[in-house]
């Protein structure tokens, strides 16, 4: 009986709250970043969402916390932007650390490729971009992404696959 009671405790308990944070903060951040870009300060959105969760902690059971956090962060960001094109930045020197020397032509080609890539990514729909980048960049499995986005695994698969195909066609100018 006691255990059953402890299961329904709300998010007001500090241990519950920080566990929720531990579990969802990064995913929430990545989701906001890939969806809206960094212009809208994903870190702040994460903070806002968790503060809102804390304010309403009595009304929200931990099981509902994840969807609550994602919709709060999503909605507050949507309030700010009106479907502006999202351009994600890349850092070229990322790779330079690992290689000893690069000839200028390689660097130039690399930059050209990434510029195309950048445009291609910003041409993806939000849905496809988020799913694709969570998979390729954050290394998340279809199932995990499905959980984050609250959609089926099949839908995730479809989004990522079509994103990949769209990117390839656009980058290679097919």
């Amino acid at each position, binding site marked *: 009986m006691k255990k059953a009671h402890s299961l329904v405790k709300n998010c007001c308990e500090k241990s519950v709250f920080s566990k929720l944070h531990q579990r969802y903060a990064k995913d929430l*951040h990545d989701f906001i970043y890939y969806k809206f870009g960094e212009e809208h300060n994903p870190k702040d959105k994460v*903070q806002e969402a968790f503060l809102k969760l804390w304010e309403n902690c009595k009304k929200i059971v931990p099981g509902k916390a994840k969807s609550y956090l994602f919709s709060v962060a999503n909605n507050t960001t949507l309030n700010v932007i009106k479907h502006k094109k999202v351009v994600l930045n890349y850092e*070229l020197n990322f790779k330079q650390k690992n290689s000893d020397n690069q000839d200028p032509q390689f660097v130039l080609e690399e930059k050209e490729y990434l510029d195309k890539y950048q445009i291609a990514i910003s041409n993806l729909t939000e849905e496809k971009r988020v799913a694709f*980048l969570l998979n390729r960049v954050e290394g998340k499995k279809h199932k995990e992404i499905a959980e984050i986005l609250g959609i089926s695994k099949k839908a995730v698969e479809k989004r990522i696959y079509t994103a990949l195909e769209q990117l*390839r066609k656009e980058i290679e100018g097919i």
Partner: protein
Amino acid sequence: MNIKKEYLINKWLNNELTEEELKAFKKLDDYDSYMKISEKAKYFKCPDFNTNDSLKNIESNIKAKKSSSYKIRYQYLAAVAAILIVAFSIFKIFNNNSDIKTFKTEVAKTQTINLPDNSIVNLSANSLISFDNSAWDTKRNLTLEGEAFFDVEKGKKFTVETSYGKIQVLGTQFNVKARKYGFEVACYEGSVQINVDDRIYVLEEKNHFTLKNKNISKSKTVFTSPDWKRNSTILKSTSLDVVLKEFKNYYDVDFETSTVDMSRQYTGSFIHNDLENALKSITLPLDLTYEIKKEKVVLKAK
């Protein structure tokens, strides 16, 4: 083939390719470009997210919010208190400055005062009235020390407060004499209500009310204005002691009376504008002599 390709790619994307499938995947025409796209995607990785820092920030924000809500409440209270204090002091200042008006006459001087409602007060010598100017419309109330004649315009209740009691009228002419040594009210027109020692007396026109040694007496008067307005004082069966006190309201003199019996009764009058004449009016009937020395008048029995 196409279906096979999509299947392989999805498996690859989910890291589920078997060795055989991987071989097949590598044989795809676009294998290189898929790999490149996959590899270069890492350039678009979002900035690192530090979960611990984030939690700390959130926790400190929660604390700040709590304390700031208290702060706001205190500031709000302080603001309200400040406004109240300011409002109260403004109210006080206005009350003190503009409201209470006081008029005082010196010995041998009289003054006519027009009240806000056109009622007239004739203030006799050595007397004082004060009233609340701003509240006059709602409350015709004044206090009197000494003697004064009132010609009151019709209107709300008009109240004269003295150390002996209250005189209340609606609209009339009357005289109040509230000296330390005696209380008299004379009504010349209409009627007057006098409250003394929790008792109410109504004084009709041409009547005179006297309170002397706690005894109340009423008498008729033929005059239409008080004696002092005619520059004289009329006294009936008054002890010499009181006569001289009354005298001093109109003449700035001191008396030397060590050899005279001050309890002797005097009936008569004296005028206010001639010292020698006035002194004669008092001393002759009582068979006294007077001698004027520098601001001192010596009374002696003959």
